[in-house]
């Protein structure tokens, strides 16, 4: 024999889903009023909810993520093009070494000057960074 509570719940579940009416013998039960009250309260939306700013915050995060994604894509394209360029230069020099002989002679003649220029540029960058850091601290 089915439990009375089970029968009422089963009937109310059916009514909830299909809109069928509750049989007469069950409506006479005292429990049905309590169950109907429980069912109606459980279906009510709770008073507390998300703050008004929630949607704006989530959408902002969505936009920030999309921007990061497109930035990454841009950086990868730049890296790809740079790698392709470097590789092309290396291959050109390797295969046409003889064609660049005047350039090698020029570099050989001014190697001291080139080295001084490189050291000078590096020293300038270093000093620039240090002065920028000290000015931002003060």
């Amino acid at each position, binding site marked *: 024999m089915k439990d009375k*509570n*089970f029968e009422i*719940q089963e009937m109310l579940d059916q009514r909830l*889903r299909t809109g069928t009416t509750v049989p007469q013998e069950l409506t006479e039960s*005292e*429990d049905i009023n*309590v*169950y109907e*009250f*429980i*069912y109606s*309260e*459980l*279906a*009510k*939306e*709770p008073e*507390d*909810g*998300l*703050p008004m700013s*929630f*949607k704006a*915050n*989530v*959408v902002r*995060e*969505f*936009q920030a*993520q*999309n921007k990061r*994604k*497109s930035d990454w894509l841009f950086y990868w394209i730049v890296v790809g093009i740079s790698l392709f360029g470097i590789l092309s230069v290396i291959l050109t020099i390797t295969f046409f070494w003889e064609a660049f002989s005047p350039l090698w002679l020029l570099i050989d003649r001014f190697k001291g000057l080139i080295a001084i220029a490189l050291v000078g540029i590096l020293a300038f960058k270093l000093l620039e960074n240090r002065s920028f850091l000290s000015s931002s601290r003060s």
Partner: protein
Amino acid sequence: MDEEHRIILGIIKGDSRAFSLLVDRYQKLVFHVAKKVLPEQADAEDVAQEVFIKIHKSIGTFKFQSKLSTWIASITYFTAINHQKKNKRDFTEGYTEDSLQMDDGQENPEELMEKKSAAQYLRQLTDQLPEKYRIVLTLFHLEEFSIEEIGETTGIPEGTIKNYLFRARRMLKDKITNHINRDYDER
């Protein structure tokens, strides 16, 4: 193509209006599910935000094998469970199937009824139920999920869901009936 498909395609393409529509449509579901696992408002809000970010990242993997609402509810449920584990805040930990007696809290039901309506008393009783009972009640009654959909969302077998629903509602009914009878006797 229905609107749900259009929203999903829009999100994949990075359209923030489509994402905004999705948030509008599902923020209540996400919050209700999160709140049933994590009673603290701030925790539920954090999880709700995390869920929408997860949806954005993994929407491309949604294959329409289930309803979008079931998929979103499932992400929410498991994100909330993980959050709860990380913060070790399971208020109903140690609850066993045999201990089917709810704690009325510090105040007795009479005191509560004097202060609050029957609906509030029922809400308090519901909040004291174990987390799995709360979640199946919310999904079934508030979100109108079928038993099968609740199973897809939570991973709980259908027979167990039916059992949880029956027991939870019966416990609530017994508590409220006892309270009404006691109140009536005193008058």
